[in-house]
């Protein structure tokens, strides 16, 4: 069975919510942290309801609605989400109120919305969807695990139409916390020259990216998801290289067959060196290399942004100039895109997309 991406919705720090565009224009930031642009889209909810939703639920709902409208496939059989950080804003808000009010007279709403499944269940409530709903929460693997679940549901015939989402929100406090681990740049940089900074740290980001996955092609099909894999605790470049090679082999492919690699380069010299070492070991000269984190920033489900970009690229047969690091010289057609992401050189993930048709 083919697993087809038949709809997308992407709310990010770029104007990605408009599915008729594809990164022709990108937003430049001079910052250490970038946040989503408010989509110029009718959320289809009344004002009163909208005001009660926090920013994460609002942006997540809008991304999922864009996706469902794009696919035109009706109410999904299942809603599967992945988020690494989860409901950051409301968790910290509830905690800070506990301190401030000395565990007394606390507004309950932030607590209610503090779990990772808050968005997935909010979407179910708004759609009146009574079916399968799971929220994956494992750090940099959360989106990949959600994708794997969606693939299993479609392959087993349990479902025909899955709404899949990857999302993370960043707040000032979350930025400060993670910054203590040395993850962000010390000074504001231009996101468009992120890969030339030569310093440690990345820029913090966020995003809400949804997909409609179905077991067959439609007139809307963007691309086919061939496979997904996670490699836990693999701090060695050669073993990560072997892992990617066997991932390609189990899909009947050699590195030469991959036209473009979308690598999770994030501007941190050490992180980027891992990508360069692994890719140099594996792929012949002439393989296209593209990056995306300068567009959305670094966050735990950033690979969802990459899957959105890869799906659009395979359909349009165009790699946006804004993403290109090294152009592919071997062939013109784009048939396979490999998305390769890693977290601190320890945990690696792979998503393989193929051109539909």
């Amino acid at each position: 069975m083919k697993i087809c991406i038949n709809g997308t919705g992407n709310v990010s720090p770029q104007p990605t919510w408009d599915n008729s565009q594809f990164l022709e224009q990108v937003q430049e930031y001079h910052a250490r942290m970038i946040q989503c642009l408010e989509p110029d889209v009718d959320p289809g909810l009344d004002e009163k309801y909208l005001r009660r939703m926090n920013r994460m639920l609002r942006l997540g709902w809008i991304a999922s609605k864009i996706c469902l409208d794009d696919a035109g496939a009706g109410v999904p059989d299942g809603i599967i989400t992945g988020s690494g950080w989860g409901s950051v804003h409301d968790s910290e808000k509830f905690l800070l109120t506990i301190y401030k009010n000395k565990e007394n007279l606390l507004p309950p709403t932030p607590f209610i919305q503090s779990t990772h499944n808050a968005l997935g269940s909010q979407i179910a409530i708004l759609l009146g969807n009574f079916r399968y709903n799971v929220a994956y929460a494992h750090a940099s693997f959360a989106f990949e695990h959600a994708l794997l679940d969606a693939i299993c549901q479609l392959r087993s015939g349990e479902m025909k139409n899955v709404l899949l989402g990857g999302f993370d929100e960043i707040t000032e406090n979350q930025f400060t916390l993670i910054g203590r681990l040395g993850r962000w740049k010390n000074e504001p940089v231009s996101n468009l020259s992120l890969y030339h900074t030569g310093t440690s740290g990345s820029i913090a980001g966020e995003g809400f990216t949804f997909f409609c996955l179905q077991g067959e092609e439609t007139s809307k099909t963007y691309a086919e998801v061939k496979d997904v894999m996670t490699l836990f605790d693999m701090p060695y470049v050669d073993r990560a290289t072997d892992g990617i090679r066997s991932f390609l082999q189990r899909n009947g492919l050699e590195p030469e067959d991959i036209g473009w690699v979308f690598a999770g380069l994030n501007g941190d010299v050490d992180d980027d060196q891992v990508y360069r070492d692994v890719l140099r070991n594996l792929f012949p000269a002439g393989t296209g290399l593209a990056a995306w984190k300068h567009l959305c920033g670094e966050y735990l489900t950033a690979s969802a942004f990459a899957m959105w970009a890869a799906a659009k690229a395979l359909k349009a047969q165009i790699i946006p100039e804004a993403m290109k690091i090294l152009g592919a010289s071997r062939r013109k057609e784009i048939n396979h895109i490999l998305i390769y992401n890693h977290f601190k050189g320890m945990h690696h993930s792979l998503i393989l997309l193929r051109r539909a048709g």
Partner: protein
Amino acid sequence: MPERVFITGCGVITAIGDNLEENLRSLQAGVSGIGEIRLLETLHRGKLPAAEIRHTDRKLAEMLGLPMQDGLTRTALLAMIAADEAVRHACCNLGDRWRTGLVSGSTVGGMVTAEKYYLDYLSNDTRNAWIEGNDCSESTERIARRLGIRQYVSTINTACSSSANAIMCGVQLIRAGLLDRVVAGGTDALSMFTLNGFNTLMIYDREPCRPFDDSRNGLNLGEGAAYLVLEPERTLKGRNPLCEVTGFGNTTDAFHQTALSPEGTGAYMAMKTALERSGISPEQVSYINVHGTATVNNDLSEGKAIEHLFGIKVPPASSTKSNTGHMLGASGAAEAVYSVLSILHDTIWPNLRFVTPMQELHFAPAERYIHGSGVRHVLSNSFGFGGNNTSLVLSKC
């Protein structure tokens, strides 16, 4: 016919016992772990009861043979104790050729420490070692590294149904042919964050909770961890499984973020789907381990859903949350372990502190310890915030 998936080992730590044997004896003796809070730092100490495990973090680390170190959360300590036991109990060698995965549910996660050090996290570098474990996955990764599991390491957070979903997910991964063996379960430590959360929702009882009683007035939190080893036929190699996971149902109530619909639509569908998948009729269910939080809303909604599905012939049902309190992300797995014990020992656990039947329902929970009624199929319910409902069916082999 989908591939059969068996439970070959269980591990559990709760306020009523540090391991499987102690939990079994406490269930048999009707022990309640709910009492005064002694370890958790909170202004509600002495006012709100909870089912706290009476070991300090240092003692838990000692039980694991680990030095206490910065960054090691209580959530993770509990998780490792229960996961260790599950693997020992299953007598399986995780270093063999089979592909083993880990799926763990947690909802409190690192918040148990973040709530102590959050202001330090924001203002200085003294607590940096704890920041890494701030999300839900820290405890999962600790188990994976301790047990040497690398093939698939995942965390689920669907609030109170997290670990029931972890078990469902494990069964699905085996059936999809992606893994040969899964350690599935969940963990959550008692925290000031959740204690205040449920208290401010005005669903936290100041007295020990009374599930399915007309006088019920809210839940009590507990803490704990529980893991089960799931295996298909091909990896058993002569070992006798404890029981089989024959059904699961995951649905959404799609009614409200915290409240279940009064008629229990999502709960009904979760149970119905689980029974259909296991191929048994409602009459064949020997025992229901209910979600039974003892909130006014849950027990009414769950009770109505049970009546809708079972009609006038409701099988014996009880809430072991009257023993352990509500362990949030660990509840589904701990109650699955209690369901396994129910099958193995042919026993129905009594619902503690039950006095007055609910006016709205025609059935009452099991009050007394029932032995020898021939327990074959147990339905275990876990319902969470956001209406994430999951029911499991465990069956005698």
